């Protein structure tokens, strides 16, 4: 049976620019999409790309543990949103059907704006990686860090839903983690950063559950 190191060595060709491109694409999907299935899938892939890059900077086991924490976070989001979807489906009012057409148009405008904003953030991240490269890390990883931090901030800033804000913050934290793992290779720090990420996911899940429990009238008034 192949070990973790064997598996990673087989896909090591992905752990440079392809992983950075993967981070860019998943980041853009996270910013633009409002479909939670797609968001969770993008986050899973993003953590995979981050693990590939981490495997070049730290021990494979540490990278794998960070990836596992990330995928557990995705599981938390998946379960929360699935439960939320079921609850919302039950209480959905069929009378809002006629406005669906105009809503679709609004989403399209919002998606265009989000896409433009994420492309601009990508340009800023690329320029930052060229002009202010991060110390102690290769150039491509520096670019990945800037992309994750920029797109994560954009997502957190443009969202109102607790889960999407948490996804943005976690993307931001992934970018920082990728850089900081070189500066501070301590396992205790890596563990505490993992705890921080997991708690962010749990908090978002808690707030989403609260949102579902809120009576509709109260939610509208706020």
């Amino acid at each position: 049976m192949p070990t973790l190191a064997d598996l990673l060595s087989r896909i090591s060709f992905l752990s440079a620019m392809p992983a950075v491109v993967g981070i860019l694409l998943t980041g853009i999907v996270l910013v633009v999409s409002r479909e939670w299935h797609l968001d969770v899938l993008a986050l899973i892939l993003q953590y995979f790309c981050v693990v590939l890059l981490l495997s070049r900077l730290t021990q494979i086991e540490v990278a794998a543990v960070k990836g596992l924490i990330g995928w557990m976070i995705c599981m938390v989001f998946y379960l929360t949103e699935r439960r939320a979807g079921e609850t919302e489906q039950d209480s959905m009012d069929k009378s809002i059907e006629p406005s669906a057409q105009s809503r679709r148009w609004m989403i399209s405008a919002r998606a265009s704006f989000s896409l433009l904003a994420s492309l601009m953030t990508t340009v800023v991240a690329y320029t930052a990686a060229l002009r202010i490269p991060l110390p102690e890390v290769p150039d491509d990883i520096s670019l990945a860090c800037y992309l994750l931090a920029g797109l994560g901030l954009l997502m957190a800033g443009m969202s109102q839903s607790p889960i999407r804000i948490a996804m943005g913050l976690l993307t931001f934290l992934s970018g920082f983690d990728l850089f900081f793992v070189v500066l501070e290779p301590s396992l205790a720090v890596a563990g505490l950063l993992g705890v921080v990420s997991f708690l962010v996911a749990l908090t978002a899940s808690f707030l989403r559950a609260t949102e579902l429990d809120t009576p509709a009238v109260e939610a509208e008034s706020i």
Partner: protein
Amino acid sequence: MIPGAFLILVVPLAVAGIGYILGQWRRLTGLLATVTAFMMGLAIATLPLDRPVAFWGGREIAMGEAVDILGRELGFTPSARWSMAFIFFAAAGIFLVAWAVHAHSLLYSIGLGSLSLLCTALLIRPLIYAALLVEIVAILSVFALQKEGQSPSRGAIQFLTFSILALPGLLVTHWLLERYALTPNETSLLSAAAILLALSFALLLGILPFHTWVTGITRDSMPFSSTFVLTIGQSTVWFILFAFLETYPWLTTYLRHNPAVLTLGVTMSAVGGVLAAGQRRLGTLMGYAVLADTGCILVAFGIDASSSLSLMLLALLVRPIGLTLMAAGSAKLTDWGLNDSSDKLKGLGWKHPLSTGVYIVGGMSLAGMPITAGFVWRWALYRSVAVQNVGQAFLLLLSSCGVVAGLLRAATLLLDYSGKSDVPSATITFRVWEWSTTAIVVLATLGCIGVGLWPQRIAPLATQIAASFTLLVK
């Protein structure tokens, strides 16, 4: 022999767990949390550090003995001792008043757990771990801040976001300063560290322009939980900043007694005062009063005076008094008025003069008005600032007046005679203050006035705590 640091870490956590299990018995949980916090504070403040003390069952407690956790040493320093004693006593006070006004039970469990983590943050070295622990506490606070059965608190989400954004700066600063210690010629490392540290602490302390979460949590979160964050949480952040400055004394020249910090403090205080004057909602007014107060603390940090540190510590000591009273009044009034919008609060003061009075006295203290606890340090601050710049002292005074104007507007609304009949009488007769609630809240109010009238009791304490920060006080 039980090391003191181990007790400080384990006892609040264990009681937090018990409190969570007993969650449905709010009164019992609140009482348990209050007694635990008070006893821990008492133990930290009174037990000797240099020798073990025999305790129950023949066991000995060695308060000063260090303990190893994850290969990191948790050792007592005099400054950490007083900081921890303060946060435990302040927490006991908040828990007691929250218990009296029936606050929700998550505050107690999350609060005790947070106290344990915050104390660990004050004891642990290197400071990189302290930053991570403070971050964990900030995230946990969101659970206590969220109101039951209401939409997700935007303030709590903003608080979470700003806390996460502060983390990278704190962690990278540590690395930059370690590198600077090895290569002292590279001064660019020091300036980068100073900028990052200033930005991170500005985010954590809600300093202008990162203040939105402060008013956010006071507006739409649980009043006592936001009080906990704005007193215990913020005080610990200040103590960790002091620890940074003591550990890396080179930073002191960049950050302390800096005219830019002084100007920012004055601006923040003025903005807080002006915005407070225009508020009609109790929670938002509380937030802007805190903003003005934090601005004044920043001024104390920036002024070039020997009493600078004592003033800051005095401010941190008296802040919980005013803020807890405001939270008590606000919690009760919004509970009766169902929310704190102006139409719901109209005339409520006639039916509930005690809640109204408590809110106003707490606000006066936060504004630094005479005969209240807040006046003790504000007056000394105005005098110190006036020596250097009369204009800035005048602006600080005006910011206090702004907060008082906001309080007068709130009082006018609450005592609006035309709205008196709108108050649903059934709700009021159902929820009357019990004698124990009245007694505790009246005692807290008298305590606030007592500290203002006899400051000589509390001021030497601040000086004593300031002396424990040996490098900073110089």
